[in-house]
């Protein structure tokens, strides 16, 4: 069995003159919680639609659970829970939708559906079209979580939810789903949420993956170095992601080898004020701003 649950190679999707996904190389390890990050319009939803077989790639290919979504779409969908648009069938109540879904999935669990309906306080007798946007989202997630999928792909699952419900949902997703060793791909631009639950991240911009790595490695690798000094020779160093010059100080954003870099500055007579870690939000902003070609921090074995 492959260690990769999702794998794409040179995946492309073009709409007219717009390249929505542009040579995407993505690898989601089995059992991971993968935060798929990107700005609005970066290509996250298009990628997910390609993985679900809803749209056809212009070039390249994707494998989901070692299957091709173009040719083995039904087998992929039997084993994967997708929540893309948070729109179900407006004339059906929550109970109707549970009944509707039950027949499609061999591992469907009514027990789980009831449990989540109670835990998330979803009015199951109300028509989907009449539910609040938050309850609509919760119902979409309930259906995906109850289908007994090996892989869950959620596109912006917490958009429009209040912080308490978001917290509740994330706990359910992590404890009940990912906690059992199953794989979760979570697309979002709410970085604090992703940072809380993900163990892998991929950052997409203009349809290209800029960064894909274990979150701990990303945190350990990215550093902000502030130094005082003049005529410092740093050009050509590959670890520098960004350089900003202020009043007498220079700030470097580095990817890897921060200590070595700081030592080289000191050797040139500079004073290194601090070498500080960065949170995911800061890393995301720097990577997207830089927008350089994908340089994976860790290549999967």
């Amino acid at each position, binding site marked *: 069995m492959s260690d990769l649950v999702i794998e794409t190679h040179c995946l492309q999707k073009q709409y007219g003159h717009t390249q929505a996904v542009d040579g995407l190389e993505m690898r989601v390890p089995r059992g991971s919680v993968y935060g798929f990050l990107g700005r609005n319009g970066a290509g996250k939803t298009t990628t997910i*639609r390609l993985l*679900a077989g*809803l*749209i*056809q790639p212009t070039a390249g290919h994707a494998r989901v659970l070692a299957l091709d979504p173009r040719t083995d*779409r*039904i*087998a992929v*969908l*039997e084993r994967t829970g*997708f929540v*893309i*648009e948070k*729109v*179900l*069938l*407006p*004339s*059906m109540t929550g109970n*109707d939708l549970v*009944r*509707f*879904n*039950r*027949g*499609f*999935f061999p591992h469907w669990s009514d027990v789980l559906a009831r449990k989540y309906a109670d835990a998330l306080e979803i009015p199951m007798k109300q028509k989907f079209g009449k539910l609040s946007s938050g309850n609509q989202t919760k119902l*979409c997630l309930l259906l995906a979580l109850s289908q007994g999928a090996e892989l869950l792909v959620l596109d912006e699952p917490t958009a429009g939810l209040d912080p308490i419900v978001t917290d509740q949902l994330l706990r359910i997703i992590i404890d009940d789903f990912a906690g059992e060793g199953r794989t979760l791909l979570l697309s979002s631009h709410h970085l604090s949420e992703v940072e809380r639950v993900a163990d892998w991240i991929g950052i997409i911009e203009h349809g290209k993956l800029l960064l894909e790595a274990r979150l701990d490695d990303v945190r350990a690798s990215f550093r902000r170095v502030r130094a005082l000094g003049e005529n410092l020779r740093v050009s050509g160093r590959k670890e520098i992601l960004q350089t900003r010059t202020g009043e007498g100080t220079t700030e470097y954003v580095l990817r890897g080898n921060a200590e070595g870099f700081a030592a080289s500055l000191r050797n040139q007579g500079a004073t290194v004020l601090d070498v500080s870690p960065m949170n995911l939000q800061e890393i995301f902003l720097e990577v997207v701003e830089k927008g350089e070609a994908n340089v994976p921090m860790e290549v999967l074995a």
Partner: protein
Amino acid sequence: MYLWKCWRDTRDVLCVSLLLIGILLVFVLRQNIVLAPHAPFEKIPLILPFFLTIQAFPVSFVAWLLGTFGVGRDLGDRGGSYLFTRPRSRAYFVWCDWGIGMAQLVPILVLLNVVLGVLLHKIFVAVGDPLHGSVVIGGRLVTLAFIVWLNFGAALLLAGLVYSLTYFSTVLLKHARGIIYAAGVLVGYLFLEQVVPHYWRGIQLPRLMLQGFIQSSRDVIGISDHLGISVATRVAIILLFPLATQFVLQKSDIDR
């Protein structure tokens, strides 16, 4: 489960239609047919094409209404991403939708033609019914049962055509505009059917409804020739629409 959804979506149309036709049936059963004294039995065939035509309007409306349900409506309501991430082929959704719609048309048309049969029987009895439930058309003895079957077949083929065209249009154009498009095509064809022979004599466009009888200007002179070929051609045309829908859906990107 999808069959259940199709039934759930369309059952109101079926129930209301059956209820209305049921009321009509009760009305016909309670009605005494009184014809003018010495009404000639031989003139009965004249009313048969009228029966065929009069059911075209309600049947077309119900078929058009049923055609607006299904995948096209769900795509229009942005439910496509949800529906097509259920593990079934797109062809499955099309044929379930289409099959359920056609299956719902059958009881509606059966009941409608039962009403027709009862009414014709009462007319036969009112004029003495000398041929015991039959009538002579073009020198041939034609039974009441055959007339009712012919009406039923013509109505089903018309309903199937309207329904399938509407269903295809809603998928092609994503619901709302599709319904208007389908209605526009039908009205446009009816218009052309009238206009073409007026400007180009000798050119007669095929009628939307199967023509069971050959008529002269003053009489019904026979049962149409090649009825089997006409029926087969219409069945083939009707089946082209779900096939085209399946093709369109399989080739299209579901981006909402």
